[in-house]
């Protein structure tokens, strides 16, 4: 079965991105597919490479990057939500005249259409938020 996953809250602040991660991992271990995870609202902040969590804490971004790489998950950050919150890739930074970008490896920025498409193409859509 194909699961689409929406992450709606930022890392560390809410547990949502952790629960989504454990759910995705368990789904993959059970033989299901997770073709895409869509990061919306403050969820876009999961995809920053500039975070430095305490050494005795989990690294939420690194966990997602690793899971995505291992299973070919498309980690999509919503462009509209990301612009408001200051999450940019190289292309967006240059388009917006910003002098830096902060997106982490394995994530990509794209439109809300990717969320709808995920709803159409997966068997179950799971939302983790606040």
């Amino acid at each position, binding site marked *: 079965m194909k699961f689409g996953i929406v992450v709606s809250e930022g890392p560390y602040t809410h547990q949502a991105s952790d629960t989504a991660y454990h759910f995705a991992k368990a789904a993959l271990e059970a033989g299901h597919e997770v073709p895409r995870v869509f990061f919306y609202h403050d969820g876009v902040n999961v995809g920053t490479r500039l975070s430095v969590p305490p050494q005795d804490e989990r690294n939420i971004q690194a966990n997602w990057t690793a899971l995505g790489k291992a299973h070919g998950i498309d980690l999509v950050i919503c462009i509209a939500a990301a612009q408001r919150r200051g999450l940019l890739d190289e292309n967006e930074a240059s388009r917006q005249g910003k002098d830096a970008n902060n997106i982490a490896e394995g994530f990509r920025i794209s439109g*809300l259409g990717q969320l709808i498409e995920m709803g159409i193409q997966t068997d179950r859509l799971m939302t983790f938020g606040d």
Partner: protein
Amino acid sequence: MSEVVKKFLYVNRKAPYGTIYALEALEVVLIGAAFDQDVSMAFLDDGVFQLVKDQNTKEIGVKNFSPTFRALGDYEVTKLYVEAESLAERGLTEDDLQEIVYEDEDDDWAEKPSIRIVSRDEMAAVMADQDVILSF
């Protein structure tokens, strides 16, 4: 786009302005309209506050996005279910809400109301009839 037509429900349970969820939900609905799916919106609990008329955000310096609801008909989003019990608990009636209409192409473009006041049981039945539920 896709050949598949699924029933999508956007569930709105939060008030506008205090948090961004209502605005960003509307952004999804507008983009989603291009995908030719069977779209409904549910307004219950504090979500009913999103539809209250005469919102004026000038003093708080935040964009008033409530007029956007009136444009939903142009995007063929015409089923806005509003829970009666949620309105009543908040001291509201249908008259406190914006008028939102659409033109029915199957009925010679007659103008019809998009807002459908439903009971809690009817709302539960609407929810149980969907393929995809997006919660905000």
